């Protein structure tokens, strides 16, 4: 009996989650290896909802393929269609009119607002604070109404077409006035929310020091977007994009890299998005919204990177007889999977879900692999 007690070995327990699990909205598989309720290792497998949009895009006319990229993700649909159009515009040398560029920026920043508000709402739901979650869903409705007004649909509202924006997305004075009023309302409500959120001792004690990623590790794991900036690395692709040249905005960073920094990061980015939208509405130039004077030709593989709400999005394809060839899409959540696994390690098992959610996962975007991994 005593021998057994002395020689006993600690059995490493595995807690599998998913692919369909109550705590996770989207299907993915997370394996947590725990020892005394502390997560020692984590492994995430995606690929459950792989549909193969690139496969459908192969051989389609480029205009059709552009509108198909919208169906990759229901949260950041505009950024996919924008980047897909941008790839063809770079390849064919199409100049986008200035007004169209401004309207695209307005749509993209509205999308950033609704994506970040959704992230905050989801984060608060995982925290267990449903009142904040409902409050944020209510604030988000203002953005959804604006997107529905401009794009004609609440969710798949992509504005870009090859060479400009759709005629439906033309902004007249009434729409601009509604955007101005909406921005005032959102700024007021988000400020009120942020004050209450920061001054809530219960929430702060729950999220401070949980799921820490250091800036060194975030760079090593090749994170992108707000997940990287929340660890203290000031890296934003918007500063390098020519589309954002006319606008003044700050690159927000946070220091700690824990869940608190990640959540506050999104709150502050919302204010920056509001700032950009206000500048775009104020300085909206007159002129055409579509450039139709271009010619289709065969091009080699062209790449395009843009900054979307979750990080850096990459599209590339070649054109052959006006049809898409060799399409590759790489989404920001793909780069952040490493951070999701890493953030779980060393923390209590109850914090694992929060550590995954803090990196803003979007697994519909992520499942872009050409080869399906057997689960």
């Amino acid at each position, binding site marked *: 009996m005593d021998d057994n007690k002395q020689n006993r070995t600690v059995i490493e327990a595995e807690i599998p989650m998913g692919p369909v699990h109550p705590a996770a909205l989207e299907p993915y598989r997370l394996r947590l290896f725990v020892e005394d309720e502390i997560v020692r290792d984590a492994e995430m497998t995606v690929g459950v909802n792989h549909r193969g949009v690139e496969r459908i895009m192969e051989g389609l006319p480029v205009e059709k393929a552009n509108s198909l990229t919208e169906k990759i993700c229901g*949260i950041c649909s505009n950024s996919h269609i924008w980047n897909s159009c941008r790839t063809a515009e770079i390849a064919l040398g199409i100049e986008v009119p200035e007004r169209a560029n401004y309207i695209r920026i307005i749509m993209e920043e509205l999308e950033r607002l609704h994506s970040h508000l959704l992230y905050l709402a989801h984060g608060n739901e995982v925290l267990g604070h449903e009142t904040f979650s409902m409050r944020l869903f209510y604030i988000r409705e203002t953005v959804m109404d604006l997107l529905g007004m401009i794009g004609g649909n609440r969710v798949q509202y992509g504005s870009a077409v090859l060479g400009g924006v759709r005629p439906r997305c033309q902004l007249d004075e009434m729409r601009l006035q509604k955007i101005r009023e909406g921005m005032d309302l959102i700024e007021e409500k988000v400020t009120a929310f942020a004050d209450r959120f920061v001054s809530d001792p219960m929430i702060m004690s729950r999220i401070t020091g949980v799921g820490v990623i250091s800036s060194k590790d975030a760079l090593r794991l090749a994170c992108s977007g707000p997940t990287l900036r929340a660890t203290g690395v000031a890296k934003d692709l918007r500063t390098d994009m020519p589309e954002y040249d006319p606008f003044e905005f700050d690159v927000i960073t946070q220091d700690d890299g824990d869940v608190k920094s990640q959540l506050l990061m999104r709150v502050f980015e919302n204010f920056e998005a509001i700032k950009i939208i206000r500048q775009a509405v104020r300085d909206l130039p007159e002129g055409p919204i579509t450039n139709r004077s271009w010619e289709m030709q065969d091009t080699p593989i062209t790449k395009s990177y843009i900054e979307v709400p979750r990080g850096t999005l990459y599209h590339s394809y070649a054109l052959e007889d006006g049809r898409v060839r060799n399409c590759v899409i790489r989404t920001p959540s793909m780069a952040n999977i490493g951070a999701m696994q890493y953030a779980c390690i060393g923390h209590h098992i109850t914090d694992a879900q929060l550590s995954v959610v803090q990196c803003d996962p979007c697994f519909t975007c992520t499942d872009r692999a050409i080869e399906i991994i057997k689960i």
Partner: protein
Amino acid sequence: MSLKSYSRGRAVHVMLVYTGGCNGCDIEIVNCILSPKFDAEQYKVFLTWNPREADVLVVTGPVTKHNEQPLREIYNAIPEPKAVVAAGACALMGGVYKNCHGDIPSEEIAGPVDNIIPVDAKVPGCAVRPQDIVAGLVSALPLLLNAD
């Protein structure tokens, strides 16, 4: 009205299953129940993630091969009486993913929800609007309330 149907009507639990769509429909469904603007909770409709306490199963997305078996298991775990609502163009007829591989049988899509489990109400749209979701849920309610 029997006591059973009275109590069932007072607490309709909706379970959302996501089978590989684009997230748009899912967020609209969560939005329509949680958001104070649409607020289905005021009509005693609650969101749950546990199939054993669910009454209505809302399915979104074209069912991918990996999700086919979990969907069947979830459907079987829900106690009778139950109703299934398919929401969104993908769940109804496969959406843009239907002809993923042309005429070749698809390796990734197991087809619309109809092929796998019986569907009682269909909500069209890409993505579905919250108003339509509430209408679809209401149209499925007689199945629950009239069962003995």
